[in-house]
């Protein structure tokens, strides 16, 4: 039985990865081809030619206008995946079409819907608008993870693993005295883990990049939209400076860390990461620092989770795990994902013979 949650939107790529060239990526165990039409919009279809299954993302497959031409025999498909030309004859078999995937490009991501296309507009796509917004500078990347997606979810929901520049250093006096609250909104299917420090030391990095002198209020909030989008909101301001009643927050400094957890296969994951900030916007030094620190943290987790996957993959089932207080948020995330998996499980399809009436 698959552990991948179906009938959900997943981040497949950054917009900057997709252009006027064929691009293939495996998402949730499905081989998918992405490319841009001449008008700039992204399209996605199955990455196997209907003829002899050649990957359309492989050279010498290529685009001609708004069609993709298979590099093996020249089968040609339009932007909806319909085969419009086959070699050596005018008749194109009517079943010659590729599965076409719903695609939405927003917040610098290319989102793809995995499941039954009819359900794609009943499932909302969670937002991270700061990733592509005036007033924010973003650094981002993606690391391949040789581990199942659930291990990355466990890892990101466990605050004690955090080593982001602005939080998670268990052992400083403020952190030890700061409660961690886990909230679950059953209707919105969101898990929120909050740590709000009213009065804390300002780390040198923040002092340098924000110009804040003296103590600060530090808020660190995880907002996880299972199964894919993970947001970490970090707010820093001089002590006592809070957002306005109307929600605007001109005197706060914000760092938004975003992860998109997209299964590649049952045992591998695309680990998309991004860090956006609304201060020191043009400071290349700050960008380089954030890019390097976040990538270092991600790679440390990749090494650890790759090792964990290796030991888990061949083990017999039935080992007990032990959970303690730090796992409160992770357990909530697991439960929501399990419920989504049950809700998203596909109906058993009718046989091809029954369909061909």
């Amino acid at each position, binding site marked *: 039985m698959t552990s991948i949650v179906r009938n959900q939107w997943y981040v497949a790529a950054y917009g900057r990865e997709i252009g006027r060239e064929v691009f293939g990526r495996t998402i949730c165990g499905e081989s998918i081809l992405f490319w841009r039409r001449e008008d700039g919009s992204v399209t996605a279809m199955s990455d196997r030619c209907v003829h002899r299954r050649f990957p359309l993302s492989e050279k010498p497959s290529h685009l001609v206008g708004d069609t993709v031409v298979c590099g093996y025999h020249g089968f040609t498909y339009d932007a909806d995946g319909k085969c419009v030309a086959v070699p050596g004859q005018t008749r194109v078999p009517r079943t010659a079409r590729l599965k076409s995937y719903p695609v939405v490009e927003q917040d610098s991501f290319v989102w793809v819907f995995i499941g039954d296309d009819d359900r794609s507009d009943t499932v909302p796509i969670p937002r991270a608008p700061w990733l592509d917004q005036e007033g924010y500078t973003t650094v981002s990347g993606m690391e391949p993870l040789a581990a199942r997606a659930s291990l990355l979810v466990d890892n990101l929901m466990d605050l004690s693993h955090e080593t982001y520049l602005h939080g998670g250093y*268990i052992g400083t006096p403020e*952190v*030890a*005295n*700061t*409660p*961690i*609250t*886990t*909230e*679950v*909104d*059953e*209707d*919105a299917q*969101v898990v*929120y883990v*909050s740590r*709000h420090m009213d009065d804390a030391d300002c780390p040198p990095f923040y002092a340098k990049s924000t110009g804040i002198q003296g103590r600060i209020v530090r808020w660190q*909030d995880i907002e996880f939209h299972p199964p894919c989008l993970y947001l970490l909101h970090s707010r820093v301001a001089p002590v006592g400076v809070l957002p306005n009643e109307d929600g605007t927050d001109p005197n706060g400094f914000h760092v938004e860390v975003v992860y998109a957890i997209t299964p590649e296969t049952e045992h591998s994951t695309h680990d998309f990461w991004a860090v956006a900030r609304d201060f020191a916007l043009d400071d290349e030094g700050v960008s380089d620092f954030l890019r390097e620190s976040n990538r270092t943290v991600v790679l440390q987790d990749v090494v650890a989770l790759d090792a964990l996957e*290796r*030991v888990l993959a*061949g*083990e*017999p089932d039935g*080992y007990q795990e032990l*959970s*303690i*207080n730090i*796992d*409160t948020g992770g*357990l*909530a995330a697991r*439960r929501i994902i399990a419920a989504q998996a049950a809700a998203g499980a596909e109906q058993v399809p009718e046989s091809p013979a029954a369909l061909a009436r």
Partner: protein
Amino acid sequence: MTSPLRTVPAGPTVAPTRVLSGDRVTRVAWLPGSDRLMGECSCGARAEGGDPIGMWQWLLAHPDHPAQVAEPDAAAAAVHVPPPHRVARPEQAAGPRTPLR
């Protein structure tokens, strides 16, 4: 039924931070270093517990919250013999695989 006597570090009762505003929001607050969790259901029921599994079970029992959050079973823990961790495949065996001379 009386619960077994157990010494736990006294910690302040922490109020949960409220960020989400939906109708069906459950909250669990925890002070790092403390053994106690404070749970709050969307219906207003509150309870304290020492284990996140027991706490989520209590919260998910809504609207029929039991009188108390189930605590880990001290009696069972006293006789628990940890099983060996079995490894079947050679690639999962840890440690160097070169002969020692």
